[in-house]
C-alpha cells in the first residue's frame, strides 16, 4: 500500500533521515520503533508531506506522490494523528471532528462517520460540546484519532500515541489498535513504548540515528537479544 524508498530529510543543515526505505501492505499494522531522536516523527512528517524530503520517493497504492502538496495527501487515503495530538484546544470536540471531515469527499459522509467515531469512543459523544483543550490526555488522544478517522482513511499514521499518558490509558490506546485493525484500517505507528507496541503490530522497523537498523516480524524483534538489552532493559 505505502512504499517509502531511499528517503532522506532534515531541518536546515541537520539531516535526520538517511535513505530510509519501508513498506506497509494493505491490512497490515507496522511499527517504527527506536529511541528518542532517531527520526521517527520526522519520518511520519515526511510521509504526510509536512516536510520536504531531500531525496527518495513516496508511493501510495502505486501512485508516486513525492511532489504532492501536503494538503492533498489526505486525498490518497492517508491520515495522520500527529505527535502531541495537536487538537484545536478552543474548538469543541465536535468541531475538531468536523475539521477532520473538511475535504469535499469526507463532507458527504460526515454524519455517518461521526456516528462511527462516537460508537468507537462513547466518551467523545458525552464530551462533544466541550472544548478539546479541557479533555484529559487519554480523551484527547481518542479525539485526535477520531479526527483522523473522519476522512475515512485507508492508512492511519500514528505518531507516539502513548506519549504522556498514564499506564492504564496506554493499555487502552494499544487495545484500540486491535479494534482499528479489525475495522480494516492499515496502520503505521511510531512508538517509543517498544514492548507494548510490538505486541499489537505484525512487523516493525528499528530506526536509529536516521537509519533503519533492523526489520522483521514483531514477535522476532520482541524476542531479539539486542533489542531486549538495548530498549527493554532485560
Amino acid at each position, binding site marked *: 500500500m505505502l512504499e517509502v524508498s531511499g528517503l532522506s530529510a532534515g531541518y536546515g543543515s541537520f539531516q535526520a533521515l538517511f535513505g530510509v526505505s519501508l513498506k506497509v501492505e494493505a491490512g497490515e499494522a507496522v511499527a517504527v520503533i527506536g529511541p528518542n531522536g532517531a527520526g521517527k516523527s520526522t519520518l511520519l512528517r515526511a510521509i504526510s508531506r509536512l516536510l520536504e524530503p531531500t531525496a527518495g520517493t513516496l508511493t501510495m497504492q502505486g501512485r508516486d506522490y513525492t511532489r504532492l502538496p501536503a494538503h492533498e495527501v489526505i486525498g490518497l487515503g492517508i491520515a495522520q494523528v500527529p505527535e502531541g495530538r495537536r487538537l*484545536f484546544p478552543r474548538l469543541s470536540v465536535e468541531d475538531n471532528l468536523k475539521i477532520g471531515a*473538511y475535504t469535499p469527499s469526507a463532507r458527504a459522509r460526515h454524519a455517518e462517520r461521526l456516528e462511527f467515531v462516537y460508537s468507537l469512543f462513547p466518551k467523545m459523544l458525552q464530551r462533544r460540546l466541550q472544548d478539546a483543550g479541557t479533555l484529559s490526555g487519554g480523551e484527547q488522544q481518542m479525539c485526535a484519532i477520531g479526527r483522523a478517522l473522519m476522512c475515512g482513511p485507508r492508512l492511519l499514521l500514528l505518531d507516539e500515541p502513548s506519549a504522556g499518558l498514564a499506564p492504564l490509558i496506554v493499555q487502552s490506546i494499544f487495545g484500540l489498535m486491535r479494534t482499528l485493525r479489525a475495522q480494516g484500517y492499515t496502520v503505521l505507528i511510531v512508538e517509543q513504548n517498544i514492548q507494548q507496541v510490538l505486541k499489537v503490530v505484525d512487523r516493525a522497523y528499528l530506526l536509529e540515528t536516521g537509519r533503519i537498523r533492523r526489520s522483521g516480524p514483531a514477535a522476532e524483534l520482541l524476542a531479539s537479544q539486542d533489542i531486549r538489552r538495548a530498549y527493554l532493559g532485560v
Partner: protein
Amino acid sequence: METSIFDIFLLEAVLNGLLLGGLLALLALGLNLIFGVIDVVWICYAELVMIGMYAIWWLHVQQGLPLAMGFGFGIVVVAVLGAVMHQFIIRPVLGAEPINQLLVTGGVLFFLQAAATVVFGVEFRNLGVRMPSVVIGELSLSSARMVAFVVAIAAIGGTWLFLSRTYLGTAIRAISQDRGIMPLMGVNPGRIYLLTSALGGGLAGLAACLLVLQYDIHPAIGLSLGPITFLICVLGGLGNLIGGFLAAFVFAQFISVGGFFFQLEWGYVIAFVFFIAMMFWKPEGLFAKRR
C-alpha cells in the same frame, strides 16, 4: 423640567453610542478576523473602507448606477481589494518580522490615501442622500444610523453563523489555534488566508456602504476610523472576536456619552484616555483570549 430635557439628551447620547457601537463592531470584526487567521494587523484596514466609499460614490454619483447596485459593487470591489492585498502585499512578507509586516501595511495606508487624493481630489464628496430623522416622543435619532446598526448587527450575526456552522468557517477558527497541522486535515492554509482576506475586505466594503450614508468622503477619512478600530481590537484582545465586539460598544459609549457631557472631540479624548488606562491595567485586553 430642565432635568428631564437633560435626561432625554443623555438617553439620546446612550442610544447614539449603541448605534455607533454596531458600526465599530463591524469594523473591528473584519480587522480581528484577518489578524486572528493570518497574524498580521492590517493598519490600512480603514483605508479599504475609504476606497469602498469612493467606489460607491463614483458608481452612483458619477456613473449614475442605482444606489443598491453601487453598494453591491462597492462590497465586491473592497473584497477583491482585500484578496489582492493579501496575495501581493502580505503573502510575500508572511515569514518576515512582525514589525516589517506592520510597516508594509502602513505603506499601503499612505499609498491608498495618496492614490485617492490624486484620483478623487481633496474635496469632500457625498452621495447627496439625506435620510430623515426618526422622532420618538422627544427623542430624535438618525435613520441612517439606525439602518447602519441593524445591517451591521445582521452582518456580524451572519459572519458568526458562517464561522460556527460551515466547514470553511470552522477551519478559519481552527487555523488561528494551530496552523502547522492544517494540511493534515486537507486544508490548504494559503487558500484560507486568501478567503479570509476577501471576507475581511467584504466586511470593510459593507462598512463603507453604511458610513457613506452618514459621512462625507475624503481621502483622510480612514484616519478617523482606523485608529479607533485598531484600539477596539486591542482593547478586546487582538484576534478575539467576542472581545472586539464588546469593546466596540464600550468604546462607543465613551465617545458618545463623553461627547455629550463635554464636547464631541472630548468624547474621543476620554475614550483614548480610557484605552491607555486599560493598557496599564489589562495589557492583554479587556476580554483576554483564553490561552
